[in-house]
């Protein structure tokens, strides 16, 4: 039974969904699962991981871990890896996970496999499926060396209730201050409770057809009606027109996403955009041009004026959600 260490990311005082996804997947693969949680005042959260596969939960808790910073978190996670001696380490490929994964792997003197969407296990050996070319192709990848470090794309696996022993152990990590050269001066996070595009279950995206920053309100109304797991996205055309920040961009120069539902409004569907949404479960396209390439990839298409379709759709969604 392989020993799998799972890094459980905390954000805004809660363990992220992606952490439960990878912990329960680790257990489902037949691993002995340890989780590691790092932050300030996070000890009380640790127990939850037991319900989702963790046999043991290592807690690194202290004021020095209040804000994420690469070096202290690398040291803490590498320290826990030293205690567990895992053959496999999973992290969620969130914004933080993408920064931490290659850094902690390099500290452990191994490589890592980024943004995996599927995993198989043969003994202790993982084979991972991961997208390349923003999803235009997939590679089956194996890691040489131990531990095998992988980041897993959010939404690749469901959160499964699967009991682990759930023992919590507090770990003291004395940081090597000489290696900590960066200082986090400030952190600004939008007050919005909306999930990140890479983790959202529903994305409503606007493109050139939205025709102005002010019209994103139509998308916001629909997102609000769809509930807390929905968020806004945008095409490159909308970002380059400066109607919305680059953080919202979906596609090859933005984020690659896999929501349950992707609604593209006024997006024609350039190859770079389509590559970034291809793993969405259901794609809806609303555009006035019947020849738009997006319709060739959409499960449901509406040829029409989005300024008429979206408000009505919002109204209908509200009725359904009633």
């Amino acid at each position: 039974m392989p020993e799998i260490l799972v890094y459980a990311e905390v954000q805004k005082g809660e363990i992220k969904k992606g952490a439960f996804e990878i912990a329960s997947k680790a257990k489902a693969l037949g691993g002995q699962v340890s989780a590691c949680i790092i932050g300030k005042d996070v000890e009380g959260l640790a127990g939850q991981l037991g319900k989702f596969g963790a046999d043991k939960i290592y807690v690194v808790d202290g004021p020095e871990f209040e804000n994420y910073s690469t070096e202290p978190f690398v040291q803490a996670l590498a320290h826990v890896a030293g205690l567990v001696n895992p053959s496999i380490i999973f992290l969620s490929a969130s914004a933080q996970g993408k920064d931490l994964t290659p850094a902690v792997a390099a500290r452990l003197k191994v490589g890592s496999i980024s943004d995996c969407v599927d995993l198989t296990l043969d003994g202790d050996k993982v084979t991972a499926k991961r997208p390349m070319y923003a999803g235009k192709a997939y590679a089956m990848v194996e890691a040489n060396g131990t531990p095998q470090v992988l980041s897993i794309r959010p939404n690749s696996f469901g959160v499964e209730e699967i009991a682990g022993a759930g023992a919590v152990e507090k770990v003291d990590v004395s940081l090597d201050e000489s290696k900590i050269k960066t200082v986090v001066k400030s952190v600004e996070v939008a007050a919005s409770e909306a999930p990140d595009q890479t983790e959202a279950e529903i994305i409503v995206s606007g493109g050139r057809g939205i025709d102005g920053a002010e019209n994103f309100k139509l998308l916001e109304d629909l997102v609000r009606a769809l509930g807390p797991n929905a968020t806004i996205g945008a095409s490159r055309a909308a970002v380059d027109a400066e109607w919305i920040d680059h953080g919202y961009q979906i596609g090859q120069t933005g984020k690659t996403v896999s929501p349950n539902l992707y609604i593209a409004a006024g997006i024609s569907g350039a190859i770079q955009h389509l590559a970034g949404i291809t793993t969405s479960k259901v794609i809806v396209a609303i555009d006035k041009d019947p020849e738009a390439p997006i319709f060739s990839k959409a499960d449901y298409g509406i040829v029409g004026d989005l300024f008429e379709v979206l408000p009505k759709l919002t109204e209908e969604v509200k009725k359904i959600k009633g």
Partner: protein
Amino acid sequence: MNAVVCVKQVPDTETLIKLNAEGTEIATEGVKWILNPYDEYAVEEAVQQKEKAGDGSVTLVTLGPDRALEALRSGLAVGADTAVHINDAAFAEKTDPYATAVALAAAVKELEYDMIFCGKQAMEDDAGQVASILGELLELPVVTVVVKLEVSDDKKTAIVTREIEGGHAVIEVPLPAVFTAQKGLNNPRYASLPGIMKAKKKPVTVKTVADLGVSAEPMTVVKSMSLPPDRQAGKMIEGDDAAAKAIALAKALHEEAKII
């Protein structure tokens, strides 16, 4: 202010990706190769920082086959001064981010630098690892996904803004350091005709694995590749007007797809 920029040549993002007959890598026939778009931001930032400081030089480093020289030339055409081309058949078969970073680190060690820039990720393997490994090997701090960078007057530190989930973090970091460029960091300039002409005469040093004293041994191995299942066009929602179509769509998503 001396800067090193690690760059990579990748297929144009317009490329329709196909696989070779063995299904082990992409078919390169007919592929148009470009400088990785995120590396354009990295090169531009290095050139701007040099211009602001009024002294220093920008050196590009790449690892790739003969054709990668073109990517170096496009960086030299927009203001980089010199380039190092790690070109060795040992990397031709399979390479990975770790082996790449080991080779780059060995090449970078021989150069003068206050800052090292990389693109956020290469738009081909999309791994986003090389900069972090490079920082570890060179024992330098790394700040990823940078959208703003200001160097202090004494040139000893940088204040950088990086993208985080739902917002931004501002980080102070002593130089030298490694940075990865995100879209939005700057607006890369286009190469001018004189720039392109001058680039042809700028020095490019070729290095082999033996020159660098490193191994090309990868830490991760691509066993096979596949293409995603082709998404088929689904159902067009019909109706008398936009409102009728919207109602039909909501119904389909609720009752048929069962996702709302």
